[in-house]
């Protein structure tokens, strides 16, 4: 493989990491509070607001059931409003964030719901406020599950990022399509796939390791 092609792969890897990294951070910034709220706002719960819960649930479901490639195209005006352009890696962060936020929110909701309800009652019994319960009980107790959820979200984002090539987003997927498929360079396609597999492995292993480290539930000596 020529040095130019290797440079292309390195550049595309950088673009992918940039898009996925920023989208994962933003997705967490929006998805974590949304997920916590979804997990605590049904009737009788900490922040009980059943109507808001149901409405948000519907929005989350609608976003999650829209195919990503359609979402990318459909929100181009919004992307232009936010990023100033609808083309390139920076612009691609907008649809990636919008797709990952509800995904992360649902995973966070599931992880938070796993926390034993008795702990909420316990914290309430010694006078904890709802916010203290969230930050001192729910999030720390759900942390292993939250880390695995984020890992899953990053892996999914790596997959999504391959599609933003359609709007000039760049990245590994785009490189694979343009060189590997359209210019018929199977070695390029192979190289892209190998890099993606390596990235997914790396992210998953790191996530598993961190989740194990913070999990005190089943530690034996």
């Amino acid at each position, binding site marked *: 493989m020529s040095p130019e092609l290797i440079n292309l792969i390195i550049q595309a890897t950088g673009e992918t990491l940039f898009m996925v990294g920023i989208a994962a951070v933003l997705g967490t910034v929006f998805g974590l509070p949304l997920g916590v709220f979804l997990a605590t706002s049904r009737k009788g719960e900490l922040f009980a607001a059943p109507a808001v819960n149901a409405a948000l649930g519907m929005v989350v479901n609608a976003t999650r059931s829209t195919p990503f490639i359609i979402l990318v195209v459909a929100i181009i005006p919004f992307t232009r409003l936010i990023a100033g352009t609808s083309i390139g890696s920076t612009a691609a962060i907008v649809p990636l964030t919008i797709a990952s936020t509800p995904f992360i929110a649902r995973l966070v909701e599931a992880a938070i719901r796993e926390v*034993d309800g*008795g*702990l909420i*009652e*316990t*914290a*309430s*019994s*010694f*006078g*904890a*406020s709802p916010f*203290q319960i969230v930050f*001192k*009980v729910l999030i*720390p*107790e759900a*942390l292993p599950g939250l880390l695995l959820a984020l890992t899953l979200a990053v892996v999914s984002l790596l997959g999504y990022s391959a599609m933003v090539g359609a709007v000039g987003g760049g990245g590994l997927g785009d490189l694979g399509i343009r060189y590997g498929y359209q210019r018929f360079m199977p070695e390029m396609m192979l190289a892209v796939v190998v890099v993606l597999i390596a990235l997914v492995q790396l992210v998953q292993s790191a996530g598993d390791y961190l989740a194990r480290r*913070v999990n*005190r*539930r*089943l*530690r*034996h*000596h």
Partner: protein
Amino acid sequence: MNAHPSLVIGEPVEIRDASSQPDAMVRFETVSKTYPTYRGKPGVLALQGIDFAIARGSITGVIGRSGAGKSSLVRLINGLEKPSTGRVVVDARDISALTGRDLRLAQRSIGMIFQHFNLLSSRTAADNIALPLEIAGWSKADIKARVSELLALVGIADKHDRYPSELSGGQKQRIGIARALATRPDVLLSDEATSALDPQTTRAILDLLANINRELGVTIVLITHEMSVVRQLAKEVVVLDAGRVVESGHVADIFTHPRHPITQSFLAEVTGDRLPVSLASRIVQEPGSHAVIRVQVRGAGASDTLIARLARELGLDVSLLSARIDEIGGQHVGSLVLGIPGGEGAATRTLAFLSQHQVWAERLGYVA
């Protein structure tokens, strides 16, 4: 008692009957609790006509079958639930009227321990105990000192850095107790705190609670379905059945003169299995040569004269089949199993004689 800052927050509370029960730590005033209808299911009346007081510094057992309303009752004391009618007064404050920040401040003077310990798996023993202090806004240095003190108090100073998953049930409950006491509460609520523990550990935990009551003067309210727990620890007992208080008073009184069938069935659980196996296996319900009568007498020495008087006044050759003396609620209670010769008539006369002398007795059956 020590004056908590929480006691001066909120509106002053007018106290009804203050003169009649000046020393009540917790008082239920005609409390009822109904859970509203939910998704078409009818509402549930969990508690009804609850009206009693718990003395400051006492250990009171609240006993009942599951569904009797014990959990609702204890959660009314620390404001986790609100009464539907009536009010619950804790340390001269109507806790059922408090909400938001006022309620949270009041809750700091009421500790609670749980059947399944409810420790945070992500925190060490020390950090679990620190949690209520963090919530109350204590400084790091104060928390550190207080946690060490508490770990020593409950006898697990060496488990400072252990996670709950590394500890036994008894050790976990000790952390639960230390956590409940962290903010120096006046009341400690125990919700079936020993139900998940083996008998030996249960005994150790109950001893610890007795020490805490004695040394710190904390009022303890024990929710349990086990009479043995009440017998070992409590001085006062409240028997709940179907949401009502069916009997209450000194443990020794209730143990020797249980009136309500529910109380009697609870007592049978602690006393009923005490017959020697050789005797229990011989008891039949058809009349035989000797009637077997179980008697409970209170006070040292009372049991000595009882048999002699029975023999003298009824002219019966009473035989003693089994006997034991227990300390219940600080009093000696003798449990005797007597053999009465002469068939059904003699047995009935004996029961009448005992009842006349206010001695609790029951016929277990006959032996051939």
